[in-house]
């Protein structure tokens, strides 16, 4: 009873994803690359199309750099270097 799947997942037992997570964070691999809120081009990479911050399990960042990225993205949003939600409709 207790080991049964949740009722929402009706399509059989969940399979393990074949996708292998990137092992190293790109900022740890390359020390030259710095995280700066004034540089929206590198930050764009960590933002989804809707302007959301991409989680660590997908971006593959280590927790330290994910924190820095998050901080930088939020700062960049404040000064309109990055959109807050996707592409805003310009009047």
């Amino acid at each position, binding site marked *: 009873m207790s080991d049964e799947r949740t009722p929402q997942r009706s399509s059989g037992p969940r399979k393990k994803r074949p996708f292998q997570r990137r092992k190293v964070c790109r900022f740890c691999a390359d020390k030259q690359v710095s995280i*700066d809120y*004034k*540089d*929206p*081009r590198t930050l764009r990479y960590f933002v989804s199309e809707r302007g959301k911050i991409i989680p660590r399990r997908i971006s593959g960042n280590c927790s330290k750099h994910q924190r820095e990225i998050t901080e930088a993205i939020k700062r960049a949003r404040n*000064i*309109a270097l990055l959109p807050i939600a996707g592409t805003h409709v310009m*009047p």
Partner: protein
Amino acid sequence: MRMYETIFIVQPDLGEDETKGLTAKVQEVIASMKGDFKRLEDWGARKLAYPINKFTRGRYYFLRFDGDAPLIAELERRLRLDDKVLRYQSVKLEKELAAPVAAPPKAAVEEPAEEAAEPQAEIE
């Protein structure tokens, strides 16, 4: 003394003397509060990622200075009172950045209309 950097966005369509007056005022505030003015960069008018006060473009200024807490309070108060300033953001730096971030890639952010206009000016 702490290290700060401030970015402020002003209205894009200001005249020469208005922007001059604004930057002079900023430097004067720093000088009067015994701050250490490092540099002021003009990034030019750039497209904003979202409209602020119905402006789709804004002129970015990057200010780097050292000072104490009363200075930044006074500076932000001045910026807040100024209608021409759309947005400002001050960040306290933990360590000096090795290389100053070059004026951001303008070509990537500029509107295509302006890019098209530039070569014409060169030809003429």
